[in-house]
Each structure stands twice: as structure tokens, then as C-alpha cells.
């Protein structure tokens, strides 16, 4: 590396190292706030030294060593202050501080730690996604400390105010400190148990971006990228042969395949285009390939349909569509079988509804109608437009036009989406024409 590095280059290097740095420092100091502060201090030192010396060969280790020196200085300062307190305290009976001992221990631990940056990042991710925090708090904190997003960026992405997000992050940090979390990567059975709350947060971040189909603000689609990045990082850090890695790869595959359709899923007028009507030439085949690869690795880890978790199953569903070069090629019997499995692993009325649709495509409208009858009374589906819309479609295809007509009409009344209403009313008209 040559001297004369610009601030821009140095800041870019710092961004690459930041999350690992914070992870390592948080583990030493047991505080995200202190870790962020020390990392920032290290950046300031780098900005003053690197333009002269050039970026060091191992910038991560350099930044870590610098931050550690700062931390030791701060602790030493703290220790002197506490010793004074203790001298005063000694004159008072039955008061024990023990503060200097704790600081000694922290300093010893720090000296013992080498500069090897191993799984600090993973430890940070698992802590930021700890189940003691609400999913929203986990998402905000993860984007802040792992993704390196600024508070105002997170606020815009979640259509929330900066103050709300800032407060959410402060509370999350406090909760972590209060619970005494160690920023270690959980091992064995505990890692498997903690993983779902990490995956949930990454997928929540992805869906925040994905659900925002139209957007003048590019930050929201940016959330998809951020979630994909987190998923790729997690997949890169998890042990390759651990059984729970299957679900990590499943989530990664699901996100890659869903993201491959982003360009195809909105029309010029901003309307969402359903999967079966998308122009498949506009799909991103690089992402599809990555998704299919990740799914294959997940399945090789024992994620076959019989024992697969919810993310592997959803990825397998997405893959059925991704593999079909045109909508007519879709393997509906396989999709139906995957939904049969998904409703066992992750039961939900919406999964049941999609299962009925898949069965109707695979085995005919009557099969779909039979499954719909089983879930017609589900409270979650009451006033849910897609339910009568699906029933209308099955009835229409079965030639029962009068019944289909009234279902489409009901669905049109229920939907709050103008475009969907127009589509459903067109289907009402189609029932009249066929008469």
C-alpha cells in the first residue's frame, strides 16, 4: 500500500472492518456503546496516520490493536478513579466495591486475546438478534451494528421517525447490557435454538424492502440487498456441515430467488405483476443460479422435503417457479407436495390458502375447492379478499359460473386495492359473458 491514501479510501476500509471490530470490542467491553465509541476512536487515529503511512497490510488487526490500546487507557483511568473511591469506602464499614478487581480481569482478558478476528461478527449478529429483544428492535440494531446503516437510513427504510428508531436501538442496547449478554457465538444445541430468531430478523428486513414494490426512495429496495448481504455473511460464517446450516442456506436461497424477480414484478404503472404473469426474461438469472446452488447445498445437509425446515421448504417452492422457463412449465404437483409439508412445519391460514391454490393447479379445481372448505371458517381469513377470489377462480374453472360470479363480487368488495378490484370486476364480467 502506498502513502497518500484519501479519507474516502480509509473510510471505505473502515466500513469493511467496522462490524467485526465492534463485535470484538463488544465482547471485551460487554457494551455495544463502548465498542462503537472505541471503533470510532480507531477510525480517527487511522484518518490521521494512514495518509502518511498507507493502509496497513492487515487493516482489521491494526484498527483492533488501536482500539484495544484506547480501551486499556480508558480502563486504567477508570481503575485509578475507582481506587480512590475504594480508599474512601474502606473507612466505611460493610461496603465492598471490588471494582478494581473486575477491571483487572477485563484488562487481563484483553491482553490474552490475540488479534485474530474470528467469529466476532457472528457473535455480534447472534447478540443483536437475541430473542430477549423484539423482532423490530433486533432488526434496527442489526442494521445499525452489523449493516453499518445510520439511524436516519434505518428510519427511512422502515418508514419510521429517526427518534423512534434511535430510541429502539438505545433500548435494545440497554436490554443486552442488563441481561449481561456476552457477545459469544452460541455453540451446539444452543446455536441451533438461537438461530431461528436470527433468520427471522434477516427475513423481516428483506420483506420490508420487498413489500415496498413501488418506491421513490431507493433505501427500501436497498433493504433487500442488506438482508441478502446479511444472509450471505451468515451462510459464509456458519460451519458447513452443521445440520442447522440447512435453514441458513434455505433462507439465503429464498431471498436470492425472490430478489431475482424484483425487476419483473412491477409494471410501468407501478402495479404488482403476479408471478405467473411476469416476463421471465426480466428475472435475474445470476441470482436464480445462486439461489438454486444454495438450495442444493441445503438439501445435501439433510434438508430434503421430508425433514426440511420452513425456509428450505419456501426456497424449494420459489425454486419450482424459478426453474420454469414459462408459467405453463411450472411443476404444480411438486408445489402442492411442498405446501402439504409446509403447513405441518409452519402452519398458517395463508399457507393453507396457497396450498389449496397449488392443489387446484395440480389436480383440478375440485381438489382446490375441497381444501378451501376445510379452512373456510378460519378467523384469520375472514374478510380476506384472496379467499373468495381463489374460490371464484376454482368455481369458474369448474364451470360453475353463477357461484363464481358471486365469489368474485365478494372479493371485489373486500379488497382495498383499486387495481385488484378492477381485476376482480373484470372476472365478474367474464362470468356474465360465458353465460
Amino acid at each position, binding site marked *: 500500500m502506498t502513502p497518500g491514501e484519501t479519507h474516502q479510501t480509509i473510510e*471505505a476500509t473502515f466500513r469493511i472492518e467496522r462490524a467485526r471490530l465492534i463485535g470484538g470490542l463488544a465482547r471485551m467491553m460487554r457494551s455495544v456503546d463502548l465498542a462503537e465509541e472505541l471503533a470510532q476512536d480507531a477510525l480517527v487515529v487511522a484518518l490521521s496516520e494512514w495518509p502518511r503511512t498507507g493502509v496497513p497490510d492487515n487493516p482489521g488487526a491494526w484498527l483492533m490493536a488501536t482500539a484495544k490500546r484506547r480501551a486499556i487507557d480508558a480502563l486504567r483511568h477508570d481503575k485509578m478513579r475507582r481506587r480512590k473511591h475504594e480508599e474512601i469506602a474502606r473507612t466505611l464499614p460493610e461496603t465492598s466495591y471490588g471494582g478494581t478487581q473486575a477491571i483487572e480481569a477485563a484488562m487481563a482478558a484483553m491482553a490474552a486475546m490475540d488479534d485474530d478476528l474470528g467469529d466476532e461478527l457472528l457473535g455480534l449478529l447472534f447478540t443483536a438478534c437475541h430473542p430477549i429483544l423484539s423482532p423490530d428492535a433486533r432488526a434496527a440494531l442489526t442494521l445499525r451494528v452489523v449493516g453499518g446503516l445510520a439511524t436516519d437510513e434505518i428510519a427511512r427504510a422502515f418508514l419510521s421517525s429517526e427518534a423512534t428508531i434511535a430510541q429502539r436501538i438505545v433500548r435494545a442496547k440497554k436490554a443486552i447490557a442488563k441481561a449481561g449478554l456476552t457477545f459469544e457465538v452460541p455453540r451446539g444445541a444452543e446455536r441451533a435454538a438461537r438461530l431461528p430468531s436470527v433468520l427471522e430478523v434477516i427475513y423481516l428486513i428483506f420483506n420490508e424492502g420487498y413489500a415496498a414494490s413501488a418506491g421513490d426512495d431507493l433505501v427500501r429496495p436497498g433493504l433487500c440487498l442488506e438482508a441478502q448481504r446479511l444472509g450471505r455473511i451468515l451462510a*459464509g460464517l456458519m460451519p458447513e456441515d452443521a445440520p442447522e446450516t440447512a435453514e441458513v442456506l434455505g433462507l439465503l436461497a429464498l431471498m436470492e430467488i425472490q430478489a431475482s424477480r424484483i425487476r419483473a414484478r412491477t409494471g*410501468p404503472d407501478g402495479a404488482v405483476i403476479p408471478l405467473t404473469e411476469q416476463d421471465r*426474461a426480466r428475472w435475474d438469472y445470476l*441470482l436464480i443460479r445462486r439461489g438454486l446452488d444454495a438450495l442444493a447445498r441445503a438439501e445435501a445437509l439433510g434438508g430434503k422435503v421430508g425433514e426440511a425446515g420452513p425456509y428450505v421448504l419456501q426456497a424449494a417452492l420459489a425454486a419450482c417457479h424459478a426453474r420454469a422457463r414459462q408459467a405453463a412449465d411450472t411443476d404444480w404437483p411438486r408445489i402442492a407436495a411442498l405446501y402439504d409439508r409446509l403447513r405441518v412445519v409452519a402452519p398458517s391460514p395463508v399457507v393453507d390458502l396457497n396450498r389449496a391454490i397449488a392443489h387446484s393447479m395440480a389436480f383440478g379445481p375440485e381438489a382446490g375447492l375441497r381444501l378451501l372448505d376445510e379452512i373456510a371458517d378460519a378467523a384469520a381469513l375472514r374478510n380476506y379478499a384472496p379467499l373468495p377470489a381463489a374460490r371464484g377462480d376454482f368455481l369458474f374453472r369448474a364451470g360453475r359460473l353463477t357461484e363464481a360470479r358471486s365469489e368474485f363480487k365478494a372479493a371485489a368488495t373486500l379488497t382495498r386495492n383499486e387495481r385488484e378490484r378492477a381485476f376482480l370486476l373484470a372476472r365478474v364480467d367474464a362470468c356474465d359473458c360465458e353465460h
Partner: protein
Amino acid sequence: MRVMVFTKATEDMDMSAPPTPEQLEAFAAMDRFTEELVKAGVFIAAAGLKNDAQAKRVVFEGSSRTVIDGPFAETRELVVGFSIWEVKDMDEALAWAKRAPNDAMPGKSEMEIRPFYEAADLAEFMTPEELAAPREGERGKLGVA
């Protein structure tokens, strides 16, 4: 943003002889670098390319198509590989590129970083309708906007 990183060599690499221990170590260093990219969530795809003795060119001129077999006499730099990265900006791509080992390269080599066109770039001179209309032969293109 997505970038394609072309690795270019100025001297031909002799792949006919079995690799020397130095070369093996150089390849291992390259693998470690790729591993870093994977763990940082930056890596999307990569491939090494055989040298231009194996290459062919199709030259277009009006309606004529002329095929030229490699190696190409006038070549001064040879693309020996490419990778695709997902980064926040060009600064990040540069910071990563500077970390790449070059021990495997005979002589001077270079990396050229080319950002992909994205929807936002095209929006400046295309209407949303034009953007939405599929262009002929787009299927299978690597993630163009």
C-alpha cells in the same frame, strides 16, 4: 451496487507445467481472499478464464461475420478472470481490490472495476414504459437493470 472486476495479466501464464510450490501458495492466497469476500457478503460469482490460445473472436462488420482464432497477436493485456461483487459503492470495491494478492501473476497485472448499469442509471434517459418493456435477447443476461 454490482461491479464486475476484470483481472488482467500482461504476461502469459504457463499452465502446461505442474505448479511450483510458490504457485500453489499463490493460488491458496487467492482462495483465502475469495473466502474473505464470501464472509463479508460481497462475493457473487467468479471464474478464471483460459488464455487466448483457446479463444475465438467474431468480428462484425455490416452483414459479415469473421471468425479469428486465438492467440491474438496484438494482445497486450489478457483478461485471466473476472468476479462479480455486490458492494455499497466504488470506494468499497477499490478497498477490496487493493487487498487482492497478485503473487500468482507473472509480471505486472491489473484489476479493472466496472459498475453494472442499474435501473436508476437508465431512468435518466428511459421512460418507465421503456424500462418495463423487455428487450430482445435479454433472457439470461447477468443482472442488467
